[in-house]
């Protein structure tokens, strides 16, 4: 009898302790985990973070299986419409930003490219490195999968919404792009700033027809001189605002934003 009472007591406790759930983008996952860890320690809360992808996060928000959807892209029109159909109002918060760096093989002579040249390379109009001042070598383009938020963002900013060439190599993860670019001489790819290391070379980019070329690093991204910077979002339902407010406020506070910068992201503002 005592045993049963104890189990009931435990079960009751567990259901009481159910905290805030964050689900979604794998790009935002490391950030969410760091912030949740610090927040849990500070205010004795119970925030849990899982990945799965931006689409998974937002559809969980519609189904009510998560409290916050993390997304590396803006919510899409049909996702908005499904939330509307379900009679749910939502809020969008930019929790941090992420800079994308264009990388090439370390032995590549080319060190800077304009947006127009990048567009040509990624849409398949420019096929050889000698067309942009490099060696006579075929360009091998590495991209992310079509449904990744990183892909969408690069397409919007750098390709001006044109489609990537069908012959680009689509890699399942950013780590795989770094690996492939580091072992392929003619390779070019794009990765988050946090993934930059010595095995690849970062390219300076120019968004003003070649007048100024900017290196990608935390300072230029923060100052707004580096152009390929994207926002990372949290979505939650308006009715849950009271529950999640403390967490969101913590992330947007100076402490939370410093934490974001330490994990390789750029602060939200």
């Amino acid at each position: 009898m005592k045993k049963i009472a104890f189990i009931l007591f435990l079960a009751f406790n567990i259901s009481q302790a159910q905290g805030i759930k964050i689900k979604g983008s794998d790009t935002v996952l490391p950030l969410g985990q760091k912030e949740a860890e610090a927040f849990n320690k500070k205010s004795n809360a119970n925030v849990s973070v899982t990945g799965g992808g931006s689409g998974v996060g937002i559809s969980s928000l519609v189904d009510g299986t998560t409290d916050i959807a993390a997304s590396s892209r803006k919510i899409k029109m049909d996702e908005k419409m499904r939330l509307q159909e379900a009679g749910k109002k939502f809020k969008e918060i930019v929790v941090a930003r992420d800079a994308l760096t264009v990388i090439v093989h370390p032995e590549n002579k080319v060190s800077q490219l304009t947006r127009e040249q990048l567009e040509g390379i990624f849409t398949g109009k420019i096929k050889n490195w000698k067309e942009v001042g490099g060696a006579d070598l075929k360009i091998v383009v590495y991209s992310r999968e079509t449904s990744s938020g990183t892909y969408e963002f690069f397409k919007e900013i750098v390709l001006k919404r044109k489609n990537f060439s069908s012959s680009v190599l689509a890699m399942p993860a950013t780590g795989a792009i770094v690996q492939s670019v580091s072992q392929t001489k003619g390779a070019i790819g794009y990765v988050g700033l946090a993934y930059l290391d010595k095995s690849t070379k970062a390219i300076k980019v120019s968004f003003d027809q070649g007048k100024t070329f900017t290196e990608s690093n935390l300072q230029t991204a923060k100052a707004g001189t580096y152009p390929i910077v994207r926002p990372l979002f949290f979505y939650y339902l308006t009715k849950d605002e009271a529950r999640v407010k403390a967490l969101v406020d913590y992330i947007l506070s100076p402490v939370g934003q410093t934490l974001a910068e330490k994990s390789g992201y750029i602060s939200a503002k």
Partner: protein
Amino acid sequence: MIKKYFEKLQIALLAISSMITTVTIFLIVIFLFSYGIKFFTNSSIEKGYDIVVHESNPIQKLSPVILQQIFDQEYTFWHEVGGNQDSLEILHFEDLPNYYTEEQMGAEFELVGACITDYLSKHPNAITIIPSININSSFKGKIVEVASIKFADVFTTQKWFPTSKPIALFGILPMIIGTLLVSFGAIVLALPFGIACAIYMAEIMKSKWRKYLKPTIELLAGIPSVVYGFFGLVVIVPIIKNVFQLEVGETALAGSIILAIMALPTIITITEDAIQNVPNSVREASLSLGASKWQTILYVVLPFAKNGIITATVLGIGRAIGETMAVLMVTGNSAIIPNSFLQPVRTIPATIAAELGEAPFGGTHFQALFTLGCILFLFSMGINLYVNYTSRSKN
């Protein structure tokens, strides 16, 4: 008395579990096809949007492929797509805030219809998209008809742009060819090796060595596929690149090699079991008639174990055709129709694995991935049925 009932209960339990298995499989198939078929009722325009032009534009209808090319700025004049001599202008919906203030568009974007009407009156050669909810009395313009996704289009279009806005293209031909190519390569590589290894283990090798070799090979089957994939990316891909002097090492061949390695344990263990199950009396009869050991293996043992070898092949193909993670990492995933083994390919399972997580639930892209799943299912079922049929008809 109790024993009798107990036995009946056991039999009932067996019957129930086989019923449950069958029903589950049927439910999964129904689930898969119900989503997969829904895909063909969709339009290729992003849900909730319509394509519009100025009322004076003679264009009535555009195909999804042409529309996608228009929005990729591959045309400059309307006559290239069957219209008049005017030049072609594009307005992306997301760029609307560059022309109109938030007040002009309304707090809930309810005035967008009027803004687009205004834009079209200033730019009569423009084509743009508009949310369907904004098509009301304040909107003046012509809605361009876009054909819904047809069965034949899906198999003839060669472009896979599932997330392209405003027009998505779902051409799955490159992926079907890619899947078949990689699986075929894998089986061609794995079968001779697998059967040779099984014959050696069952017939020639000393049993004290076999005791160690067989568990080692079975261990291969327990390695997670992502480990194979990583091994392929870091080791096999650079080797292929250097040996064939290619620009890229991520090729169909890399996928085939990895899949062959992954299918080997299945093929070897099942074939070896089949050969072991050949009665010794058959071998002895052959040897006593004066046949050599090799003749016995080739003409007596192998034909006797034929059904087991066929099962091994089918299971091996099944492993190869349905494998996701390892292939995803080494084949490069370009959605183009390959013309050799040394080109990047995209396979159906890899596409599903890579895209399902980010596709909006229940959307056109989501359903398209289910259609791919249906095709994959039909493939493996077809192969199974064919092999079953041929092996039975020869007996």
